[in-house]
């Protein structure tokens, strides 16, 4: 290779190395946040006690109960839900060609909220015990919203515009139905609905963590296969199709993955906003839109954001837990604004 060629190649390799570095640093931050999340909580346990419990060095029933049945599931669900939201947000922004998109744009969150509210208001009519019924119905209705968008999209060529419009239609549909439910609900049910909509990590259990993790693990390979197609999609439908990519099928596949993953995440923690919106933007600024780096980075920063929010929600009122959906908005929005105004490289 000529000198110029060498320069190009080495430039590319150092670009890749920089991205790997970003991911490694992000991972380190994630580990730190996770540790902090496990170490803090309303019971004000001492750090040594927590460490001993995690490493199973000593047996203190009280500390073990708190660490293993409450704190670890919560810290872990923050990671897997955050990663899911970051990943689906990144995918949505790519296939809808829209910087404001997240998996909620499809009406998924509104559908899930409606499903959960149905259980809360009419719980007795459903044969399942409530703590199963809510996630199941939330997932089912999230799926209904996505299927609706899918069906409309499929019949109209699955362009970004059609999907966004269909998503908005279902968003409004389910929000109106939700308002109707809130109108007839008793005050207690109303409270429950409102808190479900705030989102909460507090109801995490090991099985729930397992389910979300399994869904995430299952969806990742499906996205990996399309990694170059999604990158090419960033250059426009025309160019992508000129490269031989079936753009319509790509969008529908991605839509399916997003609905399943978002549905699973939202079903267990409610609608926690801004993670799916902000994490991809951070990823984009730090590693660009080569999806081989963009998707993992979005997942990583999504997990990091939610984990930090979990820590923050415990720090705001010592001894109590601040609703996490409010924390993600209060932290997410100013952070987002700072990101946009201070960065040299701004995309969109």
């Amino acid at each position, binding site marked *: 290779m000529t000198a110029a060629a060498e320069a190009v190649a080495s430039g590319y390799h150092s670009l890749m190395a920089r991205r790997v570095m970003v991911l490694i640093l992000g991972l380190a931050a994630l580990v730190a946040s996770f540790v902090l999340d496990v170490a803090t909580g309303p019971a004000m346990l001492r750090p040594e006690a927590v460490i001993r419990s995690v490493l199973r060095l000593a047996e203190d029933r009280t500390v073990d109960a708190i660490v293993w*049945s409450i704190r670890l599931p919560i810290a872990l669900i923050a990671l897997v839900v955050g990663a899911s939201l970051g990943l689906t947000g990144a995918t949505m922004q790519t296939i809808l060609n829209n910087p404001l998109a997240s998996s909620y744009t499809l009406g998924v969150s509104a559908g899930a909220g409606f499903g959960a509210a149905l259980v809360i208001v009419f719980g007795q009519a459903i044969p399942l015990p409530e*703590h199963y019924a809510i996630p199941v119905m939330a997932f089912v209705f999230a799926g209904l919203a996505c299927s609706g968008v899918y069906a409309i999209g499929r019949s109209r060529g699955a362009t970004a515009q059609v999907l966004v419009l269909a998503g908005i239609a279902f968003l409004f549909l389910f929000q109106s139905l939700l308002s109707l439910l809130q109108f007839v609900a*008793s*005050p207690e049910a109303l*409270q429950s609905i409102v808190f479900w909509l705030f989102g*909460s990590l507090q109801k995490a259990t090991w099985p729930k963590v397992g389910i979300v993790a399994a869904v995430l693990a299952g969806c990742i390979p499906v996205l990996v296969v399309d990694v170059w197609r999604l990158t090419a999609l960033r250059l426009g439908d025309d160019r992508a199709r000129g490269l031989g990519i079936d753009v319509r099928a790509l969008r529908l596949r991605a839509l399916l993955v997003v609905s399943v993953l978002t549905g699973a995440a939202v079903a267990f923690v409610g609608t926690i906003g801004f993670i799916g919106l902000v994490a991809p933007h951070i990823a984009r600024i730090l590693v660009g839109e080569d999806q081989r780096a963009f998707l993992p980075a979005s997942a990583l920063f999504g997990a990091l954001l939610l984990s930090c929010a979990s820590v923050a929600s415990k720090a705001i009122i010592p*001894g109590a837990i601040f609703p996490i959906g409010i924390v993600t908005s209060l932290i997410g929005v100013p952070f987002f604004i700072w990101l946009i105004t201070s960065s040299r490289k701004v995309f969109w």
Partner: protein
Amino acid sequence: MFRRTFLAALAAQMLAPAFGAHAQTRQTPVQITDAFGRTVTVRVPAERVIPTFYYEEFTAIAGVEGWNRVVGMTRTAWESWRQSIYNRYVKVIPPLASVPDIGLADDNTFSVEKIIALRPDVVLVSSYAFGALKHHIAQLEAVGIPTLVLDYNAQQLERHLISTRILGRVMGTEARAEDLARFYETRYRAIVDRIATAKIAVRPKAYVEIGQLGPEATGLSYASTMWGAILNNLGADNIAVGKLAGPSGPMNPEAVIAANPDVIFFAGSSWPNRPKAVKTGYDATPEVTRASLAPYAGRPGWADIPAVRSGNVNAVEHGLCRALFDIVAYEYIAKRLYPDLFRDLDPEASFREYHAKFLPVSYGGTWMLPLKP
């Protein structure tokens, strides 16, 4: 011989606390069926207990000494919601001021973690919060902390009695609990039986509303729960039945006027930051109560309602509802619904007696009052 008996009695008295203390550290696991029919194994008498509501009942049944064994509570439900009542109790129950807060179910601050760290023998939750706490209760169960549901909210005799007896069992004060149960049941049955025997031809139409936000706003009314249940138990024709979207809710003001109720009750209290509320409670005088009630009776379109014309607009303390001393409210409401039938009842005297026998604070203030004296 008398002296020997006297000395024996004295010795027994002095040794009894020692025995008592020894007995108290000996706990036995028993199966208790709570107000929701859940059968739970609890070690009684409980050494470390966490009540979350119904604090006046807890105090009546477990006594001031019971509070020495309370390791956590939902402070908001007493300190904020019933501030003036709390302030009186905290003066006579020293440990109360520093009991740790484990959070409230209503605003999602209920913390399983905190409860676990306090190592209670049992947690007592109220029926209305049970729905929101299913997950938390399951988590506590998983680490061996039992939860019992008490239910004074249903306003049903059976639930009142069961909850009272459960509290007695848990705290080891069964005798007191029985006293209270009997106090309640005799009075309750007396009222209800008299109404049944009287075979009232036309049921009086009654309307109840929480008078908290001022006469311009319409407060919550109740169809079948809380005050609605009390009205229904007393055989009144509760005009809210069938007109609310759920078990409780604000009635349409037009519907209230159209229904022409014979008796109207406004549930008041001493809520902080509610200047337009109907004022009742320990710190209210009859003049203050009447002054706060009058604007409500003066609502537009109300002048011709039978209840207003006859002066049968009443203030009742909202805190009397869903409590063991709701029997006092029953007596008062029965008197207002069927004045001829219940001339002999004196609710104020009953409440005075309840305070003297069962509560550590002294009776005072205004709790139930008609607008027209």
